[in-house]
């Protein structure tokens, strides 16, 4: 059955990325404690190496890591004595998830509306304006947009807090900065999907039935145009996720994205390894769910067949 097969592909993908990440991380020459070697006595270093399993041969380390991973333990951090990778992720996840989901919702709702309106006004003024907005939205990277939003909306006009995290007001600017490009992409995608659907024969049939224009657009147009957009949510989620790295950094939001970028900066390998696996898993699960729901929504595709 398709779901089961797809599920195993998902597991294999997660395993591949774990292995890949592990190999990449351990291919770095040298010792992560090299900088401490001068100041710390040899026994302490030995202890620390033991703590991180660095005294074992690589294959053993790998198996140990996999074993811990299966038990959902991503291991300790090098930078922080007290917070292991699990705690770090638990700390950062709520903020990141809120930011990501809020942006996804903004991008989807407004993107879809914009795309539908543009398609219905094909080659009209609204169409041109929406598409102008969309193409500009796609062209401006979020790390350029975010500082601009901060400068105008927060600093100059004082409408929102400048940075950091806390109240809902804090989430507005980062969500907007993060959502703009995906919104624009969704709008363009929906517009072309809608244009294609509205050209189909069954729309003519619906028209010949004497249905009202709104009825045709919603029941026959939008419903069919939405289906390809669903399959687009996967890449969109990936886009948002990488977006959170810069947005959380710029707005000083204590999310996983920020920890991830910090860990890159500090070369805190266990954290990089752990968060990468975490991110990948989330994305791969999203892709899986999107794929399944796509097949549920579209009656033409059976869950039992492969049907690529």
């Amino acid at each position: 059955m398709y779901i089961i097969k797809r599920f195993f592909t998902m597991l294999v993908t997660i395993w591949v990325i774990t292995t890949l990440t592990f190999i990449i991380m351990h291919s770095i020459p040298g010792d992560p404690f090299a900088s401490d070697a001068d100041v710390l006595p040899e026994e302490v270093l030995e202890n620390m190496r033991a703590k991180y399993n660095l005294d074992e041969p690589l294959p053993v380390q790998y198996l140990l890591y996999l074993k811990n991973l299966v038990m959902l333990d991503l291991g300790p951090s090098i930078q922080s004595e007290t917070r292991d990778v699990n705690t770090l992720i638990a700390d950062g996840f709520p903020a990141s998830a809120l930011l990501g989901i809020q942006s996804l919702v903004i991008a989807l709702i407004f993107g879809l509306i914009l795309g539908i309106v543009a398609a219905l006004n094909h080659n009209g003024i609204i169409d041109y304006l929406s598409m102008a907005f969309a193409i500009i939205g796609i062209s401006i990277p979020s790390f350029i947009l975010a500082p601009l939003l901060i400068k105008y909306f927060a600093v100059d006009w004082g409408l929102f807090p400048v940075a950091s995290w806390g109240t809902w007001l804090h989430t507005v600017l980062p969500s907007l900065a993060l959502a703009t490009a995906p919104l624009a992409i969704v709008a363009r995608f929906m517009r072309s999907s809608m244009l294609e659907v509205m050209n189909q024969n069954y729309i003519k049939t619906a028209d010949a039935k004497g249905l009202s224009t709104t009825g045709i657009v919603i029941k026959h147009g939008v419903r069919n145009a939405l289906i390809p957009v669903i399959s687009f949510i996967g890449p969109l989620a990936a886009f948002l996720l990488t977006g959170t790295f810069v947005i959380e950094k710029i707005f000083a939001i204590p999310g996983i994205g920020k920890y991830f970028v910090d860990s890159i900066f500090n070369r805190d390998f266990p954290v990089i390894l752990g968060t990468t696996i975490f991110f990948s898993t989330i994305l791969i699960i999203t892709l899986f769910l999107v794929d399944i729901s796509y097949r549920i929504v579209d009656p033409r595709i059976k869950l039992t067949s492969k049907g690529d």
Partner: protein
Amino acid sequence: MSRLLEVEDLQVSFKTYGGEVKAVRGVDFYLNQGEVLAVVGESGCGKSVTAQSIMGLLPKKVSRIKGGSVTFEGEEILGLPKKQMQAIKGSKIGLISQDPMTSLNPTMMVGKQIAEVIKKHTDIAKNQIKVRVIELLAMVGLPNPEQRYSQYPHELSGGMRQRVLIAMAISCDPQLIIADEPTTALDVTIQAQILDLLKDLQKSLDTSIMIITHDLGVVAEVAQRVAVMYAGVIVESGTVEEIFENPDHPYTWGLLNSIPKYGSGEKDRLIPIQGSPPDLFAPPTGCPFAARCEYAMEICVQEMPDKKRTSETHHARCWLNDPRAPLVKDLISAGRAE
């Protein structure tokens, strides 16, 4: 017999990249109550565009009705406000479209798609609609109508889909059914079944049908009257007998020659009409068929012939019917027709 539909001098153009396509260039025909009219002609001659203009289905942005009138039940319906037209579409005029494979919404149960029409145009109680739909599905000869109700188009064969579309078209007891090549996309055995179904329904529901086709076999089977269309004009029209036994237009002759004849003892050759229809971007000023006509005369390329009446019901647009024209048999003996 009263007039149900009358189309006069209908002209429709499309805006395209290459310029204006004059798809329909002055079409006249009428349809009486309870009658079956066949519109025949080659692909691209404007049959579907004519049908769509009657129902107000032309794509608004690219098409333009340049003139003419369409009278339905004594009322002008060309350019009727959207709301009023919506009340007629699906209820008084039903459409069976050319392509059953793509004319149903792929993500909606077929039963629901029929129920929609009934809900829109009648005040049948909600819980009765489904009963009525299943009844309709049975009427058009779908086996297991209850199960079919909740199937999706891709689960049905082409012939079944066409039956669903027919059920949809007759669901509100329309006065007129426009069937745009209802059998072209189907294979031969199914074609015959669908035609039989249409004939039966026409009798039992007492509606009128305008059937569009390029198959004269279909015409002979179902229609009482025929309109022959070529390059956006009706070149000849008459009763089936008149057209089959006494055709007045060389294009009709050509069409008749291109259907296989059975039982005539010898195996008749199938003679296709040479050449192709004119460019609708710049249609010729004269008779559009002149370039392919074996009997073309000088005047044919200069001036469009008028409608010439040979009986109450029989008209043709051809210079050969002009008293000044030479007799066709002279033309043939002069070696024109090979």
